[in-house]
């Protein structure tokens, strides 16, 4: 056994502030719903492209083997589909009935997106005004000394994630991961999603320029989703590994042994 207590056995452990706990669970429910409905939407057309346009008569970057539409779609007079635009643009009539649950899939996706965008903005504004990000999420310059970074990477690679009592609440790699999600991945997934809206891209055409077109935005949207999915998996594994019960208490009702008055001192 190591002498240093694990991250949640450290004596400085406190519950998260109430606004963090509330926004965490609203955002978690929203992200879960967005993931499920997003995959349903993708199953209607599981091909990804780069640029403005991409369809079954054009070559894809990748065709994902998800659902019944994978390599299923056929066109009148074009069997098998030629993935060759050299002959110039063509038109053809689709002869296959395809899997398409976008009636509820899309509406559920956009309903859930409201619960990502509005609470997400409240979380960002509150975090900024309260100094939460500076104090807890954003890596401090002292932590960024190369030997310290190297030690963190080495320890994580060996699954030796132990904390000393005077360490900050979050480890350095944990801060990197949270900063990436809050300041990069979440804004990117929202902006690429909005770029796919024809009304939004008409109002703000710079979004199409920024992401290299409608289909590029869709591809980046999916890639960011995969990154967020990986983050969530690691996040849940770390929560379980570092004491599921304690962590859940800290993110829901607060620690059982402490008077509630001391909970908010970390704000």
């Amino acid at each position: 056994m190591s002498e240093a207590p694990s991250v949640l056995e450290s004596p400085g452990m406190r519950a998260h502030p109430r606004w963090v706990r509330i926004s965490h669970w609203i955002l978690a429910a929203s992200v879960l719903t967005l993931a499920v409905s997003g995959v349903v939407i993708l199953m209607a057309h599981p091909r990804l492209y780069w640029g403005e346009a991409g369809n079954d008569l054009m070559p894809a970057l990748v065709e994902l083997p998800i659902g019944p539409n994978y390599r299923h779609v056929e066109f009148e007079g074009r069997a098998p589909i030629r993935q060759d635009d050299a002959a110039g643009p063509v038109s053809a009539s689709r002869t296959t009935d395809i899997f398409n649950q976008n009636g509820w899939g899309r509406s559920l996706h956009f309903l859930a997106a409201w619960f990502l965008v509005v609470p997400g903005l409240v979380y960002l504004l509150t975090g900024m005004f309260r100094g939460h990000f500076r104090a807890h999420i954003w890596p401090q310059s002292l932590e960024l000394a190369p030997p310290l970074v190297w030690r963190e990477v080495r320890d994580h690679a060996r699954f030796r994630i132990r904390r000393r009592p005077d360490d900050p609440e979050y480890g350095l790699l944990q801060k990197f991961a949270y900063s990436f999600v809050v300041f990069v991945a979440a804004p990117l997934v929202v902006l690429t999603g909005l770029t796919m809206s024809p009304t939004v891209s008409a109002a703000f055409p710079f979004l199409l320029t920024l992401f290299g077109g409608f289909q590029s935005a869709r591809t980046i949207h999916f890639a960011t989703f995969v990154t967020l999915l990986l983050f969530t998996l690691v996040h849940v594994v770390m929560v379980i590994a570092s004491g599921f019960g304690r962590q859940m208490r800290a993110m829901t009702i607060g620690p059982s042994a402490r008077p509630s008055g001391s909970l908010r001192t970390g704000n």
Partner: protein
Amino acid sequence: MKNRGLLTRRAAITAGLASLGAVAFARYPRELPPTYGHILRMGDAVTYAAQRALLPRQKRAREYSRADITSFPAIGTTDPGARKTDLGEEYRRLQAGAFKDWTLSVEGSVKSPRTFSLAELKDLPSQTQITRHACEEGWSAIGEWTGVQLRHVLDAVGIQPRARFLVYTAYDDWIDSIDLLDALHPQTILAYGMNGRELPVPHGAPVRLRLETQLGAKSLKFLHTLTLVDEFNDGGPEGAIQNGWSWYMGI
């Protein structure tokens, strides 16, 4: 001291949100599609109201060059004449006559309802635009469309001030509607040409709608009738809402 600072910030945020809300409310659409108490349709209504309230209105969708034109799948109904319906039979007859007898009826809350033949539509000022068609399935295609601005057609019949929505029906029995902001959008056209040729049957001959600020499903092919209505019309069992789809597809 710290609390007082927080209160000031909170007051500033509240004031900011309140003024944003006031601006949004002033631009809120006067009528919303019915939600039937359905939570998904409520989400659609929030999106529609928010886009109308917060975004600059009637902005033009991006246009492309001839070199950007891509292959273009035709999906859904690709030949209404193959349908065993009254309208399918009528379409077959019109197609046999190269659509010379086809007319578009414009009716409802208008000052002088009338019909337009294909030749009459072509006599109105024409407009050509190369735009991106985004399908709700996830694919997109770039094509060149030639037609007449819908606003010219609506000007010719005179919109009654009480009219709020445009309902349109097609020879494949589809029915859909848009608000007048979209109907009068400068890129909303009745298209009779595609990529420099007559509009082919799989893409909606003789005339289809092109609505560039919503998804492709709203741009009905094989147009039959345009009706201006004063109150929202969900299109009944043939309409999007009762089929489990969102009415507003600007997202």
